[in-house]
């Protein structure tokens, strides 16, 4: 019988894994979330509605973000970003959205922004950032011209 040589042991790259520090962070976050949720439901009666329970959880989630070192505004921004991530396909950035963003920024400056509008502003800011960072907005023409110039100078120096 031909005994084939076994390959050297090579640790396989985990296909579906999470980072240990991230998992630990999440565990701590969830513990705080549970404690904050408990505080949030303390005064609810046994016939509390789903709406009241969800509202209590929203308070608990926000409190947990704050516990984790995030300010309320950044937490709302995170919700706005998450909203954008759920939207498929990502809405195109338009002049109307840009205009709405300016309106909301004006309201924010005048301290008239509601919480719902804060989330809307965060969503719009996130959409705008995605738009600015998208390939179509990268200065590709200049980069391509530079690339061509470098290739050309490389080939002329080889032949020269």
């Amino acid at each position, binding site marked *: 019988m031909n005994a084939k040589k076994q390959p050297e*042991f090579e640790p*396989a790259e985990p296909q579906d894994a999470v980072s*240990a520090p991230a*998992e630990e962070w999440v565990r701590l976050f969830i*513990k705080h979330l549970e*404690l904050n949720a*408990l505080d949030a439901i303390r005064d609810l009666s*046994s016939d509390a509605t789903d709406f009241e329970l969800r509202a209590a959880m929203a308070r608990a989630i926000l409190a947990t973000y704050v516990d984790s070192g995030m300010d309320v505004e950044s937490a709302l921004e995170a919700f706005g970003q998450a909203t954008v991530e759920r939207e498929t396909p990502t809405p195109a950035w338009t002049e109307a959205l840009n205009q709405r963003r300016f309106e909301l920024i004006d309201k924010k400056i005048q301290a008239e922004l509601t919480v719902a509008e804060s989330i809307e502003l965060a969503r719009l800011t996130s959409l705008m950032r995605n738009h600015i960072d998208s390939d179509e907005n990268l200065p590709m023409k200049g980069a391509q011209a530079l690339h061509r110039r470098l290739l050309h100078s490389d080939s002329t120096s080889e032949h020269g």
Partner: protein
Amino acid sequence: MSETMDVRIDVKAAKALIHWKSLFADEVAAGAVRLAAQSRNPANVTLSHYRQAAEMAVRSLSAAILGDEPFDECEEAA
């Protein structure tokens, strides 16, 4: 989700449960990392490591639950 009854749960009891769950999870995660460190692939913590660590963590969890230490003090110390 469950039968609607006017049962009230002491906040202290509910907090104790949160603490025990967290204690168990922390013990399992830390134990699994230690077990993985002794294996051929220390950077990969597997379900098998978690199972072994969980068996050990159950025992220390029992001790923590039965311990005399009041929950609030454990929580404050954490």
